[in-house]
């Protein structure tokens, strides 16, 4: 049932495209995967022992000692009287070391221990147009992926215009929808279309697919671009129509649907992304958000694109993370709303600028249905297109939250507190505080993921 039109405040779509710039570079980005720094303390190369002899030891005595210790072969160091001894097959390293150490001519003997580089793990994905994702560089995404890529057991519900997640022909309208090309192995939970009242929340616009792709577009698969929490699942929930408008009732329905969805006794949706807003207020939506928060689900919403000094609804609610937009200079995007309710900023872009001088406007680039084809009613053609807006900033924070849930966080209040404490303060905000322009600052998942030690907190 719909509420009367007069009473229904209209939810305006945020982040209408100010530029659509398909990327056509042929450049290949080299993939570099750095091994995770697993501890190797106590580990050694099997079958090898290092032994050093006292200065006056005769070669004949050395040969005898090595043979008695089970040595099959020995390589002498070029600069000292030490040997790398290869033991007979099956010989025990500790026993050989013990035997050698007991010999009077041996100065010392030890296993040939293993070392590793101490570089922090990162992932530089090989997605073809990844080089245009300045937004992920701003988020320190490569280090983030070195720590956590997301788990399929954690899902983000994207309440939007739908998501191009399946090949489907609507029997009522005859419209054909295609799955976007760069979903790879991204998991989708069964969603719902609250606009048309069916279980196929496909995207008859492009906004929702773009937002969902920022969260979980397939990454390091050689095509397209990357998503920040690409290991997490997406639940597509359609609450906006093809013009990017929806109602409070449908938004509340969508939140409740996502929060209550259960699979095998567990509730996988941990984050709800609302790249939408209104200048009105709805008790219905507020109640749904509060239920979500108390049920362990974090709601993230866009602050608004009017450049005003007030955060829109529902982002301005206490149990919602309100997200403003940064441009490529890491400054507030001119359209991004500010105010006392602003919590964070994240890359939202400004397609009118090219501050990173890559030849393209500083949009956020993701896969989405090609707007030129959407305009003529086709939903089977796609592009890697750029959009800007607080709509684009919001999924960065939703993805960061999803990564924290994947790491082991269970409490939305803890996720919020962790993101607050580790955000990069901007615009002169105090170290333990916020300001109205940037909130607590730029979300830094790589700083939040490590959590706390006994006496060591997050790194600055």
């Amino acid at each position: 049932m719909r509420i009367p039109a007069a009473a229904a405040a209209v939810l305006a779509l945020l982040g209408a495209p100010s530029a659509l710039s398909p990327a056509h570079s042929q450049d290949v980005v080299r993939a570099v995967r750095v091994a995770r720094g697993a501890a190797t303390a106590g580990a050694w190369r099997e079958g090898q022992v290092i032994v050093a002899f006292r200065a006056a030891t005769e070669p004949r005595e050395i040969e005898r000692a090595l043979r008695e210790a089970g040595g099959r072969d020995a390589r002498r160091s070029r600069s000292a009287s030490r040997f790398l001894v290869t033991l007979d097959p099956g010989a025990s390293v500790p026993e050989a070391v013990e035997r050698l150490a007991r010999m009077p001519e041996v100065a010392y003997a030890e296993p040939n221990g293993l070392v590793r580089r101490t570089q922090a793990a990162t992932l530089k994905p090989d997605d073809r147009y990844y080089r245009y994702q300045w937004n992920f560089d701003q988020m320190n995404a490569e280090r983030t992926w070195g720590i956590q890529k997301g788990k399929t057991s954690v899902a983000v519900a994207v309440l939007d215009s739908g998501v191009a997640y399946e090949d489907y022909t609507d029997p009522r309208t005859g419209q054909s929808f295609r799955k976007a090309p760069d979903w790879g192995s991204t998991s989708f939970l069964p969603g719902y279309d609250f606009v048309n009242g069916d279980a196929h929340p496909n995207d008859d616009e492009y906004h929702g697919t773009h937002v969902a792709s920022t969260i979980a577009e397939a990454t390091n698969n050689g095509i397209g671009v990357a998503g920040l929490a690409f290991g997490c699942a997406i639940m597509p929930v359609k609450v906006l129509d093809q013009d990017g408008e929806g109602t409070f009732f449908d938004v509340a329905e969508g939140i409740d649907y996502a929060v209550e969805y259960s699979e095998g006794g567990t509730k996988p949706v941990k984050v709800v992304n609302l790249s939408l807003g209104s200048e009105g207020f709805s008790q219905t939506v507020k109640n749904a958000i509060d239920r979500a928060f108390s049920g362990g689900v974090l709601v993230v919403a866009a602050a608004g694109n009017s450049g005003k000094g007030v955060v829109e609804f529902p982002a301005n609610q206490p149990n919602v993370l309100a997200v403003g937009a940064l441009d490529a200079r890491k400054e507030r995007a001119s359209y991004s709303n500010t105010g006392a309710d602003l919590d964070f900023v994240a890359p939202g872009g400004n397609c009118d600028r090219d501050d990173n001088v890559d030849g393209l406007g500083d949009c956020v680039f993701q896969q989405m249905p090609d707007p030129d084809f959407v305009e003529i009613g086709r939903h089977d053609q796609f592009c890697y297109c750029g959009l800007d807006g607080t709509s684009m900033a919001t999924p960065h924070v939703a993805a960061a939250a999803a990564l924290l849930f994947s790491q082991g966080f269970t409490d939305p209040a803890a996720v919020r507190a962790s993101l607050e404490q580790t955000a990069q303060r901007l615009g002169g905000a105090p170290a333990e505080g916020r300001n109205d322009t940037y909130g607590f600052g730029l979300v830094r998942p790589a700083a939040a993921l490590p959590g706390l030690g006994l006496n060591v907190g997050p790194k600055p």
Partner: protein
Amino acid sequence: MTTHARALLAASALLALAAPPAGAGEIAIEAQAGYFQMAASNSASALFGSSGGGTFGGAVRYTFWRGAFVSAGARTFSKEGERVFVTGVSGPVQKLGFPLSIRLTPIFATVGYRFRNGKTIVPYAAVGGSITSYKEESDVAGEAFDDDRSKAGFLGAAGVEVGRGTFRFGAEAGYSAVPDALGLGGISKVYGDDDLGGTYVIGKLIVAF
């Protein structure tokens, strides 16, 4: 108990009772093992699941005048757990899976008094100071989150020593305080824990000369 163990125990008891009583100029070496309970119990419980554990070490004691003695030694205590996040004292502990270990090594010196010096059962009390070495190590995907510092503190202890010979046994309980060593960051800052000390109960095997 095996026959050998019984024989060893009997021999030790005989030595303890038969040997001359402790007097001025006596030197004793102690091996110590027992249980240490961290004062930063909230922080430790969140990280390690418990705030106590085994401790061991040793000390040298010199009784220089009647029952007065000086002692110096060291003990060590370590715990292993995982990194966490908490919003506050009442907030749920979010376990994050990154391994974390700590090691405390207090080096201490005390002065004390043995109340019935020379008797079979000798109660004693001591106070002193300590330098505690604290090491915290954690690796998050190749990035180290380590802390290594030493901090001064003080301690008080009371115990009892049983036996009068070369080999004796003892038990001691004590409290050590190492203020301002924690609370600089991490969960100890959230919980307001700043003391690296705690309480301990140890058993002693003593060899006196």
